[in-house]
């Protein structure tokens, strides 16, 4: 499935997670769905890898988590962006657009 879909470069998953959560609090499954939606299914994200990323980000204090109740009335863990997380997202976005611009420029001129 989706052999042509590019794998995520190292370290960008965290940024995507932060981006997805910037739209509001969400459980892990929802975060995955949101990333897929935003990327219009062009990216390949192994769903399981989301969780280590979520735990890692939580450790850094960029997101918070708590147990809540899902749409279908089940206990689910919800993740929420913290203030530090929002700031971090800004930093990452700026860094990324800078990088992609630079790489794009090199590729166009070469």
């Amino acid at each position, binding site marked *: 499935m989706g052999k042509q879909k590019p794998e995520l470069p190292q370290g960008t998953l965290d940024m995507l997670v932060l981006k997805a959560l910037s739209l509001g609090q969400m459980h892990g499954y929802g975060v*995955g769905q949101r990333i897929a939606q935003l990327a219009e299914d062009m990216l390949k994200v192994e769903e*399981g890898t989301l969780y280590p990323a979520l735990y890692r980000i939580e450790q850094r*204090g960029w997101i918070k988590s708590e147990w809540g109740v899902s749409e*279908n009335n089940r206990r689910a863990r919800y993740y929420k962006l913290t203030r530090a997380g929002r700031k971090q997202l800004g930093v990452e976005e700026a860094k990324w657009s800078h990088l992609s611009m630079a790489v794009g420029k090199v590729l166009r001129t070469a």
Partner: protein
Amino acid sequence: MGWLRKLRMRWRALRHGEEVHGEIAEEWQFHIDLRTEENIRRGMTPEAARRSAEQHFGNAGYMKDVSWDVRGGGIFETLWQDVRFGARQLRRSPGFTFVALLSLGLGIGGNAVIFSLISTILLRPLPISHPEQVFAIHQGKEKDASYSQSMSYPNYKDIRDRNAVLSGMAVYRFDPMSLSHNGSNERVWGYLVSGNYFEVLGVQAFLGRTFTADEDRTPNSHPVAVLSYGCWQRRFAGEPGILGTPMQINGHSFTAIGVAPPGFTGTESVFTPEFWVPSMMQEWIEAGSGLEGRGNGQWLPFGRLKPGINLEQARVQLNTVARQLGQEYPNTDEGMSLRLTPPGLVDPNLRSAVIAFSGALMLTVLLVLLIACTNLASLLLARATQRRKEIAVRMAIGATRARLAWQLLTESVMLSMIGAALGLAIGQALILVARASLPRTDFALTLDLRMDWRVVSFVVALAVVTGIGFGLVPALQASRSDVVFALKEDKSGGPRRAWLRRGLVVMQVALSFVLLITAGLTVRSLEHTDALGPGFDPNNAVTISVDLGLQGYDEKKGESFYQQLAEHVRALPGVKSAGWIARLPLALDVSTTDVYPEGQAEPRAEEMPSAIYESAGPDYFPAMSIPMVGGRDFAASDTAKSPGVVIVNETLAQRFWPGQNPVGKRLHSGNANVLEVVGVAKNGKYQSLGEIPALVVYYPLTQVYATSAALVIRTSVDPEAEISSVRGEVQKLDPQLPIYDAKTLKEHMRLALFPLHVGAVVAGSFALLAMVLAAIGVYGVMAYSVGQRTHEIGIRMALGARAGDVGKMVLKQGVIITAIGMVFGLLCAIGLSGVVASMLYGVRATDPLTFLFITLLLSAVALAACSIPAWRATKVDPVIAIRSL
């Protein structure tokens, strides 16, 4: 802030692991359920939907490991898990564990002992308050490199009062004293100290008090003493009532005013006093006063730096004072220069010798530890190979390589830590043995070897380093396993790993060969006691010492005592000859004097020849079996009234009158008149066995009197019996006179031989240990190789190989490994012979007999180690071996 949250999280994971695991599982289940529902909505069958959801999720096992690392207990939990798992693994293979722990324990134990020796002599500070502020003061001449801790009393007082950098400066001096207690006289060692001695050190009395300044102001006015704790316990049974009561020292009455605290044994690391008395009491303690005379440098000074003053500032300021004194008293103090060193050993020269000696010991034990660790590494490597399947399975279900390596490393560090604990226990046992085997000396020599915190931390550091160092390679090797390859029932670790193990064994054999050679040579040189060249015959001779000065003998009374006792002893049965000497050769110290031949201008101070001087009575040379090369022995006719005569040694004769007959020549010596040489004695060793040939002059005891002396008796009867009859003769002449240091000359030699003895015992035991470890190594590698080759051996036997052939094949492999190791060892031993030669007497460092013997010994041991696996190989049943293929 961040780390606090992390710590809380990890703590929770560690304490409530199940809960955290449950949460993670629940969260993931939720995810998979939602995905499954979604898939069903898209039209999949429920089964396909779930399968697809799980596939999408990825490798759950791997994810769990990573998640656990982040969310869960992380290293704490992992460590705890690994420790428990490791302990199970070690219990499961007791043979491996036993050999590994024994190797490590012995290796580390040796290191603990040697390090505790170094710690005791060189590292452990004196038990005083703020020892880092206290420094011994060494005096020397600006242009001369030789400094020693010595100072005259007048200079001490001036420097103490004029300097601005020391908060206090004190002097001490150790002296033999005669203590009368419970009707018996004993010669013991005590300190004469300045009144501020305890105050400068910051040592409080355990009982009673220490000296006051008033008690050390005027000569012979305050006969008081502070007892050492040990003396109080041993001699006075720890009786508090001793304070204030008189005790007899040198026939004078002294009052005990206090007891020093238990740990405090004076300002030297190995010489411990029985008691301290004020320096002003010197006249009562020894003949002649050292309190006067600016050139009389017989006191040992030390000082405490003022707060905020560093060592360099202190040195500069003290030398300013020294220069002032040099200008004021040019005769004695010109060019005086001072240095500060940590207190402890008397002599800086002795200190460097001790450092060199203990350095060599340390190197030896580290080498043994290296061999022990090689065994450990080799065993770990073999075990990692055996555990390939287990490791492969764990990797297949998602363990990361780092995680596996970490776990294997935990196991090896665990092993080395247990090894360290064992090592400390073995070390403690060895220390008890070492304490018991210190040589008998007249000195209060104490070597208080202890497992202090320095030793323990050294051992723990050593264990961690060896655990990591020798566990790392096997751990990395094992975790590199190719999963598929390993699961396919392949047991051999591949050729690389086999070579690594064989290489380790080759190294072991080489190292133990070198150690065995060194030990063999040391033992051989002990066999050649005569080749050590002491210059006298230590067999069939005894000696006793008396100190007439302590009993208040004057010169006239003393001389008649010496003469009478010698005559009486010569009349005893079995005595061949008996003669007095002021100081036995190869005791710890010698005295020197200026000498130059008659007819030469007096050489300048720098070029003045210096000779060891002795006072000897008639019959001393025959009693020691020192041959006379020319001239005559001293005789009764050499008296205080007859012309001054000397006997010189060969070295002096050759230096002063090369190619001429020295007998009848005359020389200037010290302040005495010109003396005539009447005899030449054969060369010997005087201070230490390793000394360079020294110039020696012997004066007749009747012309240069000594207040204490040793009587040497050559006898044909049992030495102990002879000593007790000599004691009887002394008693008859003076029942009050204490005899000290009664022993055979052989025992006396033990002191001089002590370094060599220690060297031989240490080198010998460590070399044997190294050999055993190497044998274990050889056995291990061969047993393992036979295990690996069971199939092959089975096939060979099925094809018609006989048991003998198979055995030979295995033996050959072992012999090759051993032979390579021995060749390396041989080359190293020859390469090191230059270093080793300096420690040997009478044997060459390339002694062929030793080399041959060690080669045979090691070959035999290695062969024996191989023969068990070889024998086992012959017992392989081809049917079983092939069926299990």
